[in-house]
């Protein structure tokens, strides 16, 4: 897909992660100026340093004060923000338990970053778009926001919240010239999840092989494939989609694989 984003400023949260860094590279290759925002500033620096006219900012998405400072810094340097990609997110890996045992602090952490953080950052960035009468917001949700899974209730609830918040934002911001969509990745292969999927011999672990039987494409996605779909949601030619949830899950949620 060849898309021209020359001159556009993209504010990308969670930029240091797998999907985040792939997205930064893909959009920058199309001419975008990427603002790599991450709570891990060193990681964000690494992403930004390789990209033309990019910058990095430290951002804990739970902090409206940090979000405001980041937006001020971006506007001071570029004078505009065209695209916001709310990509920062966390899941529970240590507390895989049912809701009756789910630690309150872990609930607060996951919902605080995945849902509250998305609200906080959007609230800080959107006024710059409203002022110019145009903009794009892409919220990164998850398949679990559509199809619930066990042992991660906070993540499931937060991502379902992201999906419906996307629709609400689209209804509110459409008349102001801003398109808002969500993207739900399925299983994605990153450095972090590689060991989860594959054994030392390079084949699927038994549990994952069973899981992949439910995915029509029979494999996890690559971060570049998620970035490609995000690019479409940012493309100037794609200008009549709003309030939509785009599934990039290899067909996992299309139906029941009898």
């Amino acid at each position: 897909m060849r898309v021209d984003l020359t001159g556009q400023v993209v504010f990308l949260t969670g930029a240091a992660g797998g999907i985040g860094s792939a997205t930064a590279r893909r959009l920058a290759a199309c001419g975008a100026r990427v603002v790599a925002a991450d709570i891990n500033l060193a990681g964000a620096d690494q992403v930004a340093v390789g990209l033309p006219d990019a910058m990095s900012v430290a951002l804990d998405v739970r902090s409206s004060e940090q979000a405001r400072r980041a937006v001020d810094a971006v506007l001071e340097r570029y004078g505009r923000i065209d695209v916001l990609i709310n990509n920062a997110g966390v899941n529970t890996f240590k507390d895989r338990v049912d809701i009756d045992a789910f630690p309150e602090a872990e609930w607060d952490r996951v919902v605080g970053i995945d849902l509250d953080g998305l609200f906080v950052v959007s609230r800080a960035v959107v006024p710059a778009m409203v002022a110019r009468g145009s903009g794009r917001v892409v919220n990164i949700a998850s398949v679990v926001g559509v199809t619930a899974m066990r042992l991660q209730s906070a993540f499931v609830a937060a991502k379902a919240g992201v999906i419906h918040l996307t629709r609400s934002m689209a209804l509110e911001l459409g008349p102001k010239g801003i398109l808002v969509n969500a993207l739900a990745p399925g299983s994605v292969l990153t450095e972090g999840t590689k060991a989860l999927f594959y054994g030392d011999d390079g084949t699927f672990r038994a549990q994952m092989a069973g899981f992949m039987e439910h995915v029509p494409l029979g494999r996890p996605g690559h971060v570049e494939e998620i970035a490609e779909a995000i690019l479409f949601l940012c493309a100037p030619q794609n200008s009549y989609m709003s309030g939509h949830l785009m599934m990039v899950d290899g067909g996992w949620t299309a139906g029941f694989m009898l």
Partner: protein
Amino acid sequence: MNIDLAGRNVLVDGSDGVLIAAIALALADNGGAVRRIAPRAQADITADDGSLLIFVSDGAAGADTGTEGRTGEADRLELLARTPGLGRVVTVFSAAGIVPIRGLARFSAEQAGLASLTRTLAMELGPHTRVNGVAVGAYEAGGAVVMSRLLSHAAVKRPAGLAEIVAAVMCLADPDNSYMTGHVLAVDGGWSAGYARNF
């Protein structure tokens, strides 16, 4: 939206109209060897590896033009999609297949059938063949607005231009877009996202 379809055969099925013409033109402009399937052609379709099938329902031309879906559209889609060798299928139909419309019961049900078939075929034809759809809302064509009754309810307070619908078809036809299957993109200005009227 530019994609690389060089060397790929593209089969386009559907009744003549401005939307299908715009889609076919864009596919050809991006390097595809486009061939319109003859009306009612049944068994003469062949495809080599990596070919695309674009199936445009009459429903995408809108119920308020008096157009119901062609009789047997679902049967035809299934038959064509099962052509051995196809790499991709893109279906195009009305957003009434996502949210049903009062007074258009049969139309809505038929279009929903195409949406469901798009997903089912993705499961049955994967991993080799990717199957996705585009559900179109109100759009402008030849000075008229097709499905104009949707507009008061859309977040983006205008009909789509043909190029905006074409962009979504290009996204789903793009060989670089490789992890989407069984999905229906709504290109409806937010019409199906929720209740957009002031009250």
